């Protein structure tokens, strides 16, 4: 177990180092002089020189990289060119909004996917199965930004039931917050629900044909008890796996969803940073996103190894 943990952590550290290299190199590949971008178009040569000195832009690139990594490890990702606020502080302000949106989206996705996936598996090859599979396929294929626009068109423009955009913090007015979060969360949760539904259906079909389920049926347990007491526990294991794997897709989805519904979260921050060419912010936001993804996956792998010894044995023998 200890060997597995050390090996898995070492791989994650190497991955994080490669990520930092990619992000650092990527931002330096953006055309244009960073000093010019920071100083603005009307800066003179002396002003540019001052900025280059201040930010160490005249140092060799490896020195600049090491300094940047050193500061990043201490939580200092520099400051935004546009607002002069610290990148870490800005992200810390925006991230809770996106986390709330993602949490709502996951709730909606799980709320739709579990009953639909279980029903499709239990009533395999019936109308319900066909319906669930069809809805799932549509959910994967529908572009979420179009779905968002259509929801605004019907529920805000035509019916006037929900506000089309904006954000109210949860602690200020829970109802107003819920009203504004409902449509974006539904849009963000649709694709996730579709993916989850498919996986739950497949997993439940497999579980329902297992020997212990046959034994439970042979003992005379009623169908519902077999499904809810025995099958569902193992059948829902993929939910955890898929949720871990879909975190990246959820982050990407948040970028578009927050843009459509004007939610001032992390996703919108990325687009704003790109459009305003706020490179330190782009660099920081991308680094935080990728690093969180690696750390979440490390946690998922470690928790699996605790739950399932076969994984850590495979890991320790060097299989990947």
């Amino acid at each position, binding site marked *: 177990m200890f060997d597995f943990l050390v090996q898995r952590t070492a791989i994650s550290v190497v991955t994080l180092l490669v990520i930092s290299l990619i992000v650092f190199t990527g931002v330096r590949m953006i055309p244009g002089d960073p000093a010019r971008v920071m100083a603005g178009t009307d800066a003179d040569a002396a002003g540019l020189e001052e900025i280059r000195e201040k930010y160490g832009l005249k140092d060799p690139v490896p020195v600049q990289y090491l300094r940047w990594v050193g500061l990043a490890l201490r939580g200092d990702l520099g400051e935004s060119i546009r607002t002069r606020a610290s990148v870490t502080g800005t992200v810390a302000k925006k991230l809770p909004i996106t986390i709330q949106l993602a949490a709502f989206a996951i709730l909606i996705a799980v709320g739709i996917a579990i009953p639909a996936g279980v029903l499709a598996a239990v009533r395999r090859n019936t109308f319900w199965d066909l319906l669930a599979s069809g809805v799932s396929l549509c959910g994967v294929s529908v572009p979420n930004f179009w779905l968002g626009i259509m929801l605004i068109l019907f529920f805000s423009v035509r019916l006037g039931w929900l506000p089309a955009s904006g954000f109210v913090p949860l602690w200020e007015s829970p109802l107003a917050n819920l009203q504004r979060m409902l449509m974006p969360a539904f849009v963000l949760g649709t694709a996730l629900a579709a993916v989850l539904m498919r996986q739950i259906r497949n997993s439940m079909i497999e579980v329902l044909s297992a020997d212990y389920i046959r034994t439970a049926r042979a003992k005379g347990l009623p169908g519902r008890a077999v499904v809810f007491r025995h099958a569902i526990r193992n059948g829902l294991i993929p939910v955890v796996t898929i949720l871990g794997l879909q975190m990246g897709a959820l982050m990407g989805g948040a970028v578009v969803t927050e843009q459509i519904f004007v939610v001032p979260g992390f996703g919108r921050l990325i687009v704003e940073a790109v459009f305003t060419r706020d490179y330190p912010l782009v660099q920081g936001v991308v680094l935080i*996103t990728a690093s969180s993804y690696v750390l979440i996956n490390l946690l998922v792998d470690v928790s699996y190894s605790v739950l399932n010894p076969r994984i850590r044995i495979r890991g320790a023998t060097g299989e990947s």
Partner: protein
Amino acid sequence: MSPDAATAEALLRAPVAEPAGRLRRGWRRVLRRPASAVGGVIVLFFASMALGAPWIATTDPLHTDWAKVRKAPTWANPLGTDDLGRDNLSRVVWGSRISMQAGVFSILLAISVGVPLGLVAGYYRGPLDQVIMRLTDAWLAFPFLILAIGLVTILGPSLTNVTVAIGLGATPTYVRLTRGLVLSTQAEDYVHAAWALGARDLRVMTRHILPNIFSALLVQATVAIPTAIIAEAVLSFLGLGVQPPSPSWGTMLNTAQQFLETAPWMAWWPGLAIFSLALSFNLAGDGLRDLLDPKDY
């Protein structure tokens, strides 16, 4: 003649393979999944629309007509007009060319970069495998869309750059998939037989491994194309992809968002086009997976 010799002779006389029989079996399987067949037909319809855009859409998609600004659908303009009086039908038809181009070429790029890397990593293992896989892990850590946004920021917004960005974003999936497939294929007897006969590495990879993992890669490509099409639309919607006045479905939706109250039809058609194209690719991909699943043979 001993029974063994008779069996051997019978086997030698028997036809080695029946391509016509396999085709017939494949066709029967397609007919068993009508939805997939319909999906395939719709994909072909969109492909023909993209190729035949100059003949199908006779109105210039960039032609503005101030007398027809935001007009509801009529016989003259069956899908209505946009905020500059341009014909929506024409723009949707020409938009299919952009979507197909971005979807298909980006995945071709991902395959042409990812498959050789995965092949080499899985075949040689060792330090080379470790380097390629650590890079792939790092690349995979960037959410697909955020990576594409980052790459477009570096490359600049244009159809070619969006295609490259989506392609590079999709590459690690092919590296992983190919490597995994190579690892399992390498254990097969026919690969061992090729090695025993003294076949060189390149020959084993290209003649024995690649043809046997091709179907899995093809299925993955069919599933990845709709994602790429949606990604192009998203990037164009955000203003990072194809730039106006080019008729990309994403840019059309971006404009439509501002006129939802007065001209909702501007939002219906490009969105429906993306949805139906992505759905039909997914349906066709499902059918293809069933068709090529070796377990069925």
